[in-house]
Every structure is written in C-alpha cells, then in structure tokens.
C-alpha cells in the first residue's frame, strides 16, 4: 500500500498501490505533494496498475492533485485504471478534470 514516485523528463509518475481509502489517501497525498511542489512537473501521471480498491476518497485525492498542478499550469493524467475502479471514476466525472489514458503495455515496469 502506498506510492512510488519517479521524476523523468518533466513528468512525475506516481505508481499507486493497494487500497485507496480515506486512511491511505492522506499518506499518498503527503508524499506526492512534497515532491510535486519541489519539482513542479509539467505533468503528473497517476498510475493505478496496482490499485485493488478505491472509494470516493481516491476521487478526492485525484481532484486535489488536479488543483495543485493547476497552480503552475501542469496537467494530470490517470493511467491503467483497473475495471472495478473505472465505475467510480466515471461516476465522479474525473474525465472532465484530467486525461484518462488506457494502459501502455510496452512501457517497462521497473
């Protein structure tokens, strides 16, 4: 459970994992914001490949990061949404706030 951050070519990728609820979101938010405010990336990629569960606290997490990135004109992209999380993402209309991209199977994992 948590987040792994990679900063490369002005893109900050946050590889999220485990269950994202109100409890976990607090910690993830802290880690992303600490790095994001330091490096001010042009793009923040939230990679959901290893996320097994998400409730509306995860929606709040995405919305809050979109707001943060707007401070310096950056964008947010959601990647690799598992099918069971797609429903809450579309219910929340997150596609109006950020880009939702289907998986990128050629990308190296490590």
């Amino acid at each position, binding site marked *: 459970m948590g987040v792994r951050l990679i900063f490369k070519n002005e893109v900050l990728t946050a590889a999220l994992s485990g*269950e994202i*609820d*109100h*409890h976990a*979101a*607090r910690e993830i*938010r802290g880690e992303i914001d600490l790095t994001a405010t330091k490096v001010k990336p042009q793009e923040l990629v939230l990679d959901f490949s290893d996320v097994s*569960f*998400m*409730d*509306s*606290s995860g*929606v*709040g*997490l995405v*919305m*809050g990061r979109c*707001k943060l990135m707007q401070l310096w004109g950056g964008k947010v992209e959601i990647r690799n949404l598992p099918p*069971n999380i797609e*429903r*809450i993402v579309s*219910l*929340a209309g997150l596609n109006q706030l950020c880009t939702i991209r289907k998986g990128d199977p050629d990308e190296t994992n490590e």
Partner: protein
Amino acid sequence: MKPMNEMQLSFPSNSSNEAFARAAVSAFVAQLDPTVGELCDIKTAVSEAVTNCIVHAYRNTIGTIYINCRIYEDGKVIVKVRDRGCGIEDIQKAMQPMYTTSGDERAGLGFAVMQSFMDRLHVASKPGKGTSVILQKTIARRPAKNGQ
C-alpha cells in the same frame, strides 16, 4: 422474512479500521457467492458509510461505529452502519453530489456512491444523537451446483 445469517461488529472510529470494516462485511457476504463486481460494489458502499462516521460523525473525537449485516435466502444483503456522533442537520443537502463540509480533499460523493452502487439507501439522523445508514443490495442467485 428471517435472515439466513447475521453478524454484528463494533469498533472505534480510527481511520485504520476503514479497511477492516469493508473486508469484514465482504467476507461475510461471500456466503452468497457474489460476483467480484457485486462484492466490490458492497465494499465501496460500506467504505463510504464508515468513512462518513470517521470524518463527519466523530469529527474531532473517537467514537464507536456499529455495523449489522444480514443476508437472506433470496440473495438480499442489508448492511446497517450506525454511529452516535453529531448527526446530520439537513440530510437532503448532505446527500447532494459534490456537497461536502470537509474542504478540498473530499469529493462530496459518499452518498452518491452508496446510492449508485447499492439497490437502496436509507439515511436516518438526529442532530446530537447520531446517524444510521441502511444499505441494501440483492445478489443475483445463480443455478444451484447440484442441479435440481
């Protein structure tokens, strides 16, 4: 109709118990042989209800959260999540999508998610006394394994 099985839980409103609560309900409901999707819907709704107790009902304190779960022969699941917290002044307003009293990091979608992921949602609340949320969903029955 009498439930075929029933369970009760009570636990303090620590945010670390959110995962425990939804996992416990999910493990109990598994007796009805739900699909992964049905189970995910119930887990998400329970998580929303429990998070409301932690974030709103017991805002600056730790109180007890009570869960009662009943399952029925016809596949019906009833989950009741109850607290003795601050209560809700205006339930209609609280249930509006995007309405939140907790600032930027909350989406204000808790009730909207419960409503759309379950078949029925009932909320009763008394300011100063507490809130109870009743979630209901029927798990589709699949053909019996032994044939008939």
